């Protein structure tokens, strides 16, 4: 098949226009599919701004809400119902700005009462004040705030934007540090991949030398090698090197980025497909002018290949950003964690309890990718479309 560079996803084109019922059916199907594909995102975002209390509600709701108690002249009355289990939480009233007014109802030792009522003193002059539960180590989802004697508790819409700064400043999820680590690996890795893969791809695409077909086939075959085959002995090698003072690699970023300076099969393949579409006339002319092969590569091939290089940079960045097994195996100190590894540790330390913070962190980790996607949408999609093309 002929090479197709700049594969574009054109306007829809099939054999003929659909009939109206067909078009209607297709649109309806797509709308439903798109709704179900977006549902997880909406849940992720909505959960990321939910108050802690709401996470425990067994009847899932989409809108971040919280209980509010009416504040009268003599304070607010609330009651709590629970079902005979030990409660390790505390209930307290907060001001609108989020500051706690008075911490009350510390009923950590109550196990038998079914209803517990208490007056909450609120000095703030506001008709309603949000009620929060301060959750202890063990969370219990089966107790709830109930109205007392005609008091109208209400639920108000209350997105907790504070969850985002909270997770960024959490001492277990050292967001700025993990982001810095990930970016450092990404910069080194992406640069290395660009330099090495483009050189190698040019060699395979534009220089006709003995054995090049065989070596290219070998290179493609390496894509099938499962990572564990490499990971176990590499770990042993790095450990051996450390023991024999040949360089400390384990517990550093080196295993994650140094190999990227030696080209990666997938990217070499991608770039080679692109280089092959460049006309030979240009390089011939340059050669006659006395330009060296390296000069042709640097001055002609590379500048013409910016879109393909962008695709490679993008894919490599995403690979590093998402990589989990590599950092899991080679990094040892929490100070070196990448975002993805940090998120996993954060989640497992808490056994998944602060969903809202885990979701906020997930949104944050996803956000650079989605921004990159929208900035580079065209390049991005064309790049993927090219991967499916046979050489």
């Amino acid at each position, binding site marked *: 098949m002929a090479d197709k560079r700049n594969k574009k996803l054109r306007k*829809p084109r099939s054999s003929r226009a*659909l009939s109206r019922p067909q078009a209607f059916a297709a649109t309806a199907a797509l709308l439903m599919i798109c709704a179900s594909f977006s549902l997880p995102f909406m849940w992720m975002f909505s959960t990321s701004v939910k108050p802690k209390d709401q996470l425990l509600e067994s009847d899932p709701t989409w809108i971040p809400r919280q209980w509010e108690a009416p504040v009268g002249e003599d304070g607010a009355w609330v009651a709590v119902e629970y079902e005979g289990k030990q409660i390790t939480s505390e209930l307290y009233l907060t001001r609108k700005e989020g500051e706690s007014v008075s911490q009350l109802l510390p009923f950590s030792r109550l196990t038998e009462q079914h209803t517990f009522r208490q007056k909450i003193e609120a000095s703030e002059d506001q008709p309603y004040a949000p009620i929060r539960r301060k959750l202890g180590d063990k969370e219990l989802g089966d107790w709830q705030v109930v109205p007392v004697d005609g008091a109208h508790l209400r639920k108000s819409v209350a997105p907790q934007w504070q969850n985002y700064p909270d997770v960024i400043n959490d001492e277990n999820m050292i967001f700025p540090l993990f982001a810095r680590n990930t970016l450092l690996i990404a910069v080194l890795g992406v640069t290395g991949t660009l330099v090495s893969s483009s050189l190698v791809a040019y060699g395979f695409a534009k220089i006709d030398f003995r054995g090049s077909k065989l070596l290219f086939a070998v290179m493609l075959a390496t894509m099938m090698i499962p990572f564990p085959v*490499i990971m176990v002995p590499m770990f042993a090698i790095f450990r051996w090197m450390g023991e024999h003072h040949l360089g400390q690699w384990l517990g550093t970023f080196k295993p994650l980025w140094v190999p990227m*300076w030696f080209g990666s099969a997938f990217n070499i393949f991608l770039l080679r497909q692109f280089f092959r579409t460049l006309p030979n006339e240009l390089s011939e002319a340059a050669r006659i002018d006395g330009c060296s092969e390296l000069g042709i590569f640097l001055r002609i091939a590379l500048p013409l290949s910016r879109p393909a290089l962008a695709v490679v940079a993008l894919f490599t960045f995403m690979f590093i950003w998402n990589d989990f097994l590599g950092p899991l195996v080679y990094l040892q100190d929490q100070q070196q964690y990448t975002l993805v590894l940090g998120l996993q540790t954060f989640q497992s330390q808490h056994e998944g309890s602060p969903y809202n913070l885990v979701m906020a962190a997930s949104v944050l980790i996803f956000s650079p990718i989605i921004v990159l996607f929208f900035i580079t949408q065209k390049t991005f999609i064309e790049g993927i479309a090219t991967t499916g093309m046979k050489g």
Partner: protein
Amino acid sequence: MTKRDWWNFIKGMAFISPWLIGFVLFMALPIALSFYYSLTDYPLFQPPVFIGTDNYERLFTGDALFWKTLWNTVYYTLLSLPATMLISLGLALLLNARIANQSIYRTIIFIPSIVPIMASAMLWLVLMNPDTGVFNGLLNLVGLDGIGWLTDKRWAMPSLAFMSLWGVGYTVVIYLAGLQDVPTSLYEAAEIDGAGVWSRMWNVTLPFISPVIFFNLIMAIIGTLQVFLQPFVMTKGGPDDSTRVYTMYLYQTAFEFQEFGYASAMAWVQLLIILVLTGIAFWSSKRWVHYQGE
């Protein structure tokens, strides 16, 4: 070789030398070592001791967990791979239809595939929470009882496969590109011959995009058989080992039990399985993959 051939050979080798060096250092050497380790007893903190094929014998005859995790991986592949292949092709066909707002639909279907897997694992943990998750909430809404998506051993693996469908966008885009290369003239000719929708699909579209199907199939086989992160993070292999997949057992053997020799043997078995399966795919491709210009 002529002088020019020699010169080209040297130039070519110089250009590909980064990959050649990397191939030796980060591929060939570890692969060879891995094979050697697989024939040894190698508790990480002591030197490897040669024990012949004992590791392989232990794998095949004495390790129930090996078979269990191998089956789990196969089961996941059987659930996820055909569904992914079919659904992504179906979606691509839909997205290639001539209707309004396709670029919006395409974007929405594509985006989940670029969510970092860790983030989507976290998200689906929340979605599938038996008590507070939205899936059971929706089931309750239509009057059904919720299920233990990841906590019931009958459902845990199907749930992980179900989750993989969310990420089909990448494959869909590759299919879509293939579909758009089908020349309109072919459809017109088929139509003149009186071919209906299914006949056009079967005789024009599918043969034409068969190389793309083949590419996606190979990538899916390689990727699916190495599934690791989702079960490792979401179910930790449970409940009752029902989602402990092969790569996870391998990882634990190496880095938790520190049996590097045994883990290497497992890695080689995995390599051979992938080679055999892709080999079968390549062999069968002669019958059903049609390259243009042949």
